[in-house]
């Protein structure tokens, strides 16, 4: 899959990612400094006084010029040191190493759920456009987009955890520690997160499949007597795979962001909770660390998508 030409492209894209990472962390750092409130007030605590807040600014270097603060953060970050939380003193890298797997597990499960349910629904609707199946699928899809995932999450907890006692209502377990417990904790949040994704996959797949199946080319294939199943799988789905890949890639990015809410509903100690808590206290090393990691993930996902594009359809150059 990775020939010399593609390797060259990958190398170029990795280099292009560097300014993206730097720029995004710079912008976020700037925004954190622009909005009112500062971490020195949080650090001074309940007995805050103007004098103590000034002392803390001095002690933590918070009164240094903006560029100097950002520069010293970046200088450490490129050496692999994401600093420590200003509030709790935990190493940011440690927090991320612990939180990221929880978030990735939910997003991966949610994506799989979206595909496993969304693809058959989309196919069913596309092969009989205008039928009752199509109407039902489209109705489900509209509902899936309209229902907020935190609300669905609470309904799922009420039914599957509190009523039936089948699955845990809150928390998370590391996959490496106990895979089964880890999955049982992740199922409900993943389903809540997947609801919009199922709808998206079904709708997108339906519309692009309908378009292809009603094209001149397919009509010719029918005329030649090719069986409908063969037309659907070999010509229909193969052609829409690039569209589907785009949907998956966009979904993955969106789900990473949506975990903020779902993690709060299920009390999952993931990246969403980490950044929200840090942003509330203006704990910029933590915010920066999370943004840095998320940008790296998104850039890698996009790169992977581009490579897969060129594999699925050689006419598209990565």
């Amino acid at each position, binding site marked *: 899959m990775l020939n010399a030409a593609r390797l060259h492209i990958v190398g170029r894209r990795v280099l292009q990612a560097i300014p993206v990472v730097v720029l995004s962390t710079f912008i976020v750092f700037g925004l954190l400094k622009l909005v009112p409130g500062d971490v020195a007030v949080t*650090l001074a605590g309940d007995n805050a006084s103007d004098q103590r807040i000034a002392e803390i600014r001095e002690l933590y270097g918070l009164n240094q010029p903006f560029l100097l603060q950002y520069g010293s953060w970046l200088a450490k970050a490129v050496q692999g040191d994401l600093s420590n*939380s200003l*509030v*709790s*003193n935990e190493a940011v890298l440690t927090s991320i190493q*612990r939180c990221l797997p929880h978030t990735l597990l939910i997003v991966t499960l949610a994506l799989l759920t979206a595909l496993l349910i969304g693809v058959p629904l989309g196919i069913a609707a596309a092969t009989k456009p205008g039928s009752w199946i199509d109407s039902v699928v489209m109705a489900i899809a509209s509902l899936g987009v309209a229902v907020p995932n935190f609300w669905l999450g*609470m309904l799922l907890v009420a039914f599957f955890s509190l009523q039936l006692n089948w699955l845990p*209502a809150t928390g998370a377990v590391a996959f490496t520690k106990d895979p089964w417990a880890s999955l049982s904790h992740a199922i409900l949040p993943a389903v809540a997160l997947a609801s919009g994704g199922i709808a998206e996959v079904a709708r997108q797949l339906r519309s692009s499949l309908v378009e292809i199946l009603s094209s001149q080319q397919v009509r010719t294939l029918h005329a030649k007597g090719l069986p409908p199943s063969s037309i659907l799988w070999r010509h229909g789905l193969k052609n829409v795979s690039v569209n589907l890949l785009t949907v998956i890639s966009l979904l993955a990015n969106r789900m990473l962001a949506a975990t903020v809410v779902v993690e709060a*509903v299920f009390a999952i100690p993931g990246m969403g909770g980490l950044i929200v808590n840090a942003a509330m206290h203006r704990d910029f090393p933590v915010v920066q660390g999370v943004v840095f990691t998320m940008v790296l993930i998104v850039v890698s996902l996009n790169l992977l998508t581009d490579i897969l594009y060129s594999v699925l359809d050689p006419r598209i150059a990565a």
Partner: protein
Amino acid sequence: MRILDLGSRTLRRRDILALIGGGAAAAAVGLPALAQEPKKGGVLKVAAPANPSSLDPATGGAGSDHSILWTIYDTLVEWDYDTLKPRPGMAKWSYPNPTTMVIDITPGIQFHDGTAMDAEAVKFNLDRNRSDQRSNIKSDLASIESIEVTSPLQVTLKLKSPDTSLPAILSDRAGMMVSPTNIKALGNETDRKPVGAGPWKFVRWNDNEIIVVARHENYWRKGRPYLDGIEFNIITENATALRSVVAGQNDMAFQLPARLKPVIERAKDLTMVSSPTLYCIQVYFNYARAPLDNLKVRQAINFAFDRDTFVKAALSGLGESARMTLPSSHWAFNKDVAGTYPHDPEKAKKLLAEAGYKDGLELTIGGYTDQDSVRRGEVIQDQLGKVGIRLKFTRGTIAEISAQFFAQEKKFDLLVSAWTGRPDPSMTYGLGFDKGAYYNAGRTADPELSKLILESRVSEDLAKRAEVFARIQRITVEQALSAPLAFQFELDALSSKVKGFKPNLLGKPKFEYISLA
């Protein structure tokens, strides 16, 4: 020291417990007469509302840290659950003269690492708390001139001025003793690897996820603690925290908002505990500038509030109307000024007209974005609107809005927030109303008030101190320096297997008497 008769107040408190939580709650809180010998063992799982700011008492800052800190650290002085009256903890205290305080330490106490909790350790801690550059509690101990070790188990504090608030201060962060050996070995890292002399020792802390503590086998109070350990699962979303208890994943959730009361009532096998606290929801004024520099405007706002309705509408009835910054069950409550501002919209309008605002006025106010704060804000807006005061709200996170109101920006006329309470009332008035105090947005104060705050720390006699606080309260109430609205009750949900939990007036749970059935 004279002990005030608190019988009637205690009874009232029990009445409230029985009324709200039913008989089960009164039994669950383990009134001494009903107490049986608690069962030993088991790990209590608690849904904790916030990640601690630090596990080093000197460097932390958040009020929500205490419940976790108290498991690891014992304090030199403790307090009475119902009244917050100081009582001996790891040490007893005495004042041979007004500027000398002697601390006598109980023999045989050890830190978790085996270091002796003796006079040297106490001196080390107090010196560190009042001088270390990372210490957030230097100002609490500002009245200390010097600390001497006068015997292996005795330290003597020489004070710059009389300060009888020190026992209460030593029941807070400043009195939590950390192992000197650990501090010397780890320095700044101790906030994540704490060693104290409390009933449980530290095991693990994952930010925003979990804190685990396990029994300290050599704990100085024989037979305690009852629990083998405690797991604090950090869940910042209140409704989620409660769901975790309903689902049986946690045994207890505390500091829940009043709106969740019906959920607890509906759930099976849960005990609800609700109890008075010092947490005072109030409107802060910036009275250093117009129009709040006008006494009549401040008084008008106070007359405009219908506090009983506020408690019903904003706290689902789980609270007490506030007439000053201390609740009626507090030992320093001054009932003579409690009736100063009855709900009187006509009087409010008249005062506004006299102040030159016949057609009403518009004020800017800061508030927070969470559901409960928004609800409070709406009630306030409605009540003030009825007398012609139009509020222009700006909402944001606590860090954002409180910095804009209290720090340099001075952005709003008013702030709707809360005063979380302190073990000693002189801390409440000193931090909230004194000249230059951070929580006094205008930084100005009546010289008489500053004088009285100092005077409130002179006598050891609580009755005499209460007299001084009565004068302080007269000034803050008559000058309408803020608009206290309501004391929020603590609301906790406990699984039926949790025994012996006793709420306290500070509203921050201690776990020392808890056992599992």
